[in-house]
């Protein structure tokens, strides 16, 4: 008897959860569906659209009319470039703070975090003027530099929380056996740190890929990543639903898939280790 009620209850909760999940996911699903229909069919209304023939033409058109591949490549270069640059700076810092903590380590970490809380508009003008004067507007390298600095605190923090979990005794043992600092890092620490570093990279690529303040302010065409490219569809003449859908689908698909793999790291990274 009791078992039966739990089964019924489970069935009901399942239906409720799936319905809500479907509703939340629906805008994304609809965008994907719309991208496979022609421009004329896309605005006919939901049922008429679904009944109309399926086609890949929007995907071809997006590439044909704009330089989609370039913007996609810009997104890749900017998100991976800024993540790697941040890693190079953050790994030594996080290592030192995790294994050789000093009196001020905690203050330093908190201070790094506080830089993340500065609203971007607070430095919009000087950044814009500096970019203009140094010829960095609409360049990938300029954007990589800014996003590196923006995400550096998160990278340091995430690495720090992961490195903290590596038992210090192992390093002591390696040191006793006469390992140099270099081989300590290369042969002892690195293998144990790789999972944490991978998680950090994953989360950061996602954040950088979707960053939509500096990418919108500092790029226009040549270095424009997908965020800026999609924003160009907001003008009235860009009201082509099927093409917008196709461009959007291609822009979010890679990161959606990466994101699904990073659920756990996401919580940890975005709460700075406060929730694990």
């Amino acid at each position: 008897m009791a078992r039966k009620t739990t089964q019924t209850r489970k069935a009901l909760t399942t239906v409720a959860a799936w319905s809500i999940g479907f509703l939340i996911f629906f805008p994304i699903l609809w965008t994907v569906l719309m991208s496979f229909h022609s421009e004329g069919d896309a605005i006919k209304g939901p049922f008429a659209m679904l009944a109309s023939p399926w086609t890949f033409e929007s995907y071809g058109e997006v590439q044909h009319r704009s330089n989609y591949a370039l913007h996609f490549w810009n997104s890749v270069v900017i998100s991976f470039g800024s993540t790697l640059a941040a890693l190079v700076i953050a790994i030594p810092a996080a290592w030192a703070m995790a294994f050789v903590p000093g009196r001020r380590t905690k203050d330093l970490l908190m201070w790094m975090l506080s830089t993340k809380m500065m609203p971007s508009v607070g430095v919009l003008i000087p950044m814009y003027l500096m970019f203009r004067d140094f010829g960095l507007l609409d360049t990938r390298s300029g954007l990589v530099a800014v996003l590196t600095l923006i995400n550096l605190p998160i990278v340091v923090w995430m690495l720090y929380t992961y490195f903290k979990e590596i038992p210090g005794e192992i390093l002591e043992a390696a040191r006793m056996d006469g390992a140099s600092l270099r081989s300590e890092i290369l042969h002892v620490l690195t293998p144990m740190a790789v999972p944490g570093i991978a998680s950090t990279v994953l989360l950061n690529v996602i954040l950088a890929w979707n960053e939509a303040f500096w990418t919108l302010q500092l790029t226009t065409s040549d270095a424009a990543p997908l965020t800026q490219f999609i924003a160009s569809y907001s003008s009235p003449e860009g009201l082509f639903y099927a093409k917008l859908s196709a461009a959007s689908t291609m822009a979010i698909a890679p990161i959606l898939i990466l994101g699904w793999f990073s659920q756990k790291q996401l919580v940890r990274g975005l709460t700075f280790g406060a929730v694990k």
Partner: protein
Amino acid sequence: MATKASRTAARAMVSPAVILLLGWMIVPLAMTLYFSFLRYNLLNPTQGGFAGFDNYYYFLTNPAFFQALTNTLTLVLGVLVITVFGGIGLALLLDQPIWGQGVVRVLVIAPFFVMPTVSALVWKNMFMNPVNGMFAHMAKAMGLQPYDFLAHAPLASIIVIVAWQWLPFSTLILLTALQSLDREQQEAAEMDGASVFNRFVYLTVPHLTRAVTVVILIQTIFLLSVFAEILVTTNGGPGTASTNISYLVYAQSLLNYDVGGGSAGGIIAVILANIVAFFVMRMIGKNLDA
């Protein structure tokens, strides 16, 4: 324990990060502060000189500022209410035994990975458009007049869009917190005869409180500077009906080319964010000890 040599090495390893962040924080911020006291318009090079607090005076007494401030707070509060209550409900639901939990989870968190410009445009065109949007089609099917959401309720529409993006975040964090609840403690309470309600009030709620605080604080930081969603949906309009502080500063600086006024606005935005950040830092700092 650490030797003197390793301390020196540690300092050398930390310094690049510190120097870069210090430069990133101080140089542009100092420039903003400096510009905010100047008469400086990119379109009018002849004008110049020290402006005192004039830029601040004009920025703060501009009627758009008061509207932007109210809009900023409405946006933050509106999104927080939806995401916190929605997130608690969803997390409790997803924590129940259900079939295909992993799949539902994947569906629910998906919006968080959609870039802001995409989600704003998808909502604006495919759903809220008064002619071709899904809602307009639904209204017409029911014999109703389609409603132009972004023209008549711009701020509310933006709140819905932003809440859709952030609901996954709160759900995921609250769900993670729920799942780290001590099951043994729960079972012990059940054995001792605690009712479902009492177990919820005395075990689940206190456990969730911390996670809810984290959600509120971190979302507030991000929500204070919502920008892309406003830029691609309404451009802050109609009028200034959906302009928040971030957007106002952008409009003042890069649309009106008023460097002085925009800088004063930027400094005000920094001060506002700092008030919030103060509480966030205390919260995270406490957790660092634990």
